[in-house]
């Protein structure tokens, strides 16, 4: 699975950090999303799907 984030869309709600903390973080300077792993392993797929579903700004998408 490959994913990408759109920082312009991000509002820093932090839902992704809660859902998949090994894949997403928040930038200390502005609270916006930082993608820690563009190709998360299958073991993290559930958390990543949850993050995509929960993101209020729809800023996370599959990159295929």
């Amino acid at each position, binding site marked *: 699975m490959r994913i990408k984030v759109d920082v312009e869309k991000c509002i*820093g709600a932090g839902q992704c950090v809660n859902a998949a903390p090994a894949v997403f973080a928040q930038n200390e300077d502005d609270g916006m999303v930082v993608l820690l792993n563009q190709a998360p392993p299958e073991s993290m797929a559930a958390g990543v799907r*949850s993050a995509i579903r*929960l993101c209020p700004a729809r800023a996370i998408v599959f990159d295929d």
Partner: protein
Amino acid sequence: MNHVESHLMSDTKQFPGTSAEAAPMASGCPFHAAATAPDFAILREHPLHPPEQLKDLRQRPGPTKVRLWDGSETWIATHYEDVREVLADPRFSTVTTRPGYPFVSQQRRDVLVNGRPNFTFMDPPDHTKFRRTMARMFTVERFSRMRPFVQTVVDDLFDAMERKGAPANFVDDFALQVPVRVLAQLVGIPKEGQELFLQAGKDRFDLSGDATLSHGSGEVLWNYLDSLLAENERTPGDGDEVITRLVVDQIATGKFSRDDAILVINQLLVAGFDTTASTITMGTLALLENPDQFAKLKSDQAAVENAVHEILRYASVLQFHSSRVAREDVEVGGKLIKAGEGMLALLHAANRDPAEFPEPDKFDIERHAAHHVAFSYGIHQCLGQSLARLELQVVFSTLAKRFPNLRLVKPLNEIEFAAHSLAYGPHEFQIEW
């Protein structure tokens, strides 16, 4: 309520000077309006469930139309997916001065049209500046550092309750106190300012109230924050309270005016306590009315994280908040919403949609409910949601641990609720243990 009743009821109401300009459709064709658009139901049949009308309207596909207090018609979205689509779509505006913006009561109209708009009522790009500035102070990591403080607040309040002995006033002595103390700490508001934002929030949220009260207490709070900021600008602190960060990072660098800073602080204080307090009270009532669910929480402290998602879904206290107006023609759920038409994306209706949450009226703390929309959705989703969840987790895990025999002094049907509040919840109830 059937259509005949709703038509008669609205005919008996007098809203001089408002219906003609607000509802050209309705005045041009009253029978058509009455036949197609029922009066929007505010009152609940049961305190723990949204009005039955929403269930009826959800039987139809897509958004439907209702008639508001001033005779105007608006769309309402009751399906989960429609609500999310509306709230995520930039073609819907939250700017209250746009023609067609639907106000759920006269108080709401007067408060929003005559007051200073906070960034909930701004679209991008105006919204972006405020939201981004606040997001850096509201990260998940920042809030998680507040957990020990929140635990101390909850422990202190429960200690005081035990010392005083049962029965206790649960709303005033506990549920309101938690968010007020946590917000004061987060923002950096001294004790004397806490009463001011409590009052301002109460007046603003009372949809049936007098808007001049809200303006009055809002101005008192505004002036207080103005002098508090002025003091901080003279002698800036070095902590991570919101007020200090705004003074040092924003005002001193010229990015924010003092009014900008007051506006966001004001919004945090007013938005953050009634909503949280009501979720604490409604969640407690849900647990007490469903002893099997309370038992699960008592036996498994790890269940609290999921239980809080379900409490938020089930309580959905922000009942009439998500008004929008279409900036251009938009299709939602197979219906064409024309430019200039109003839309209420009802959060509590979405959270009870059986297509998304099977047996939605059942309170089930093991349900998968993290994707509820109690905090709204889209770019205006609650800024403080991580903090609210943290407060609720600490409250409910501690409650289950310390008060396993918690019970209501009077039964649910004798408790009075703030039916006309933006944040639904009980005025007061007593507990014993």
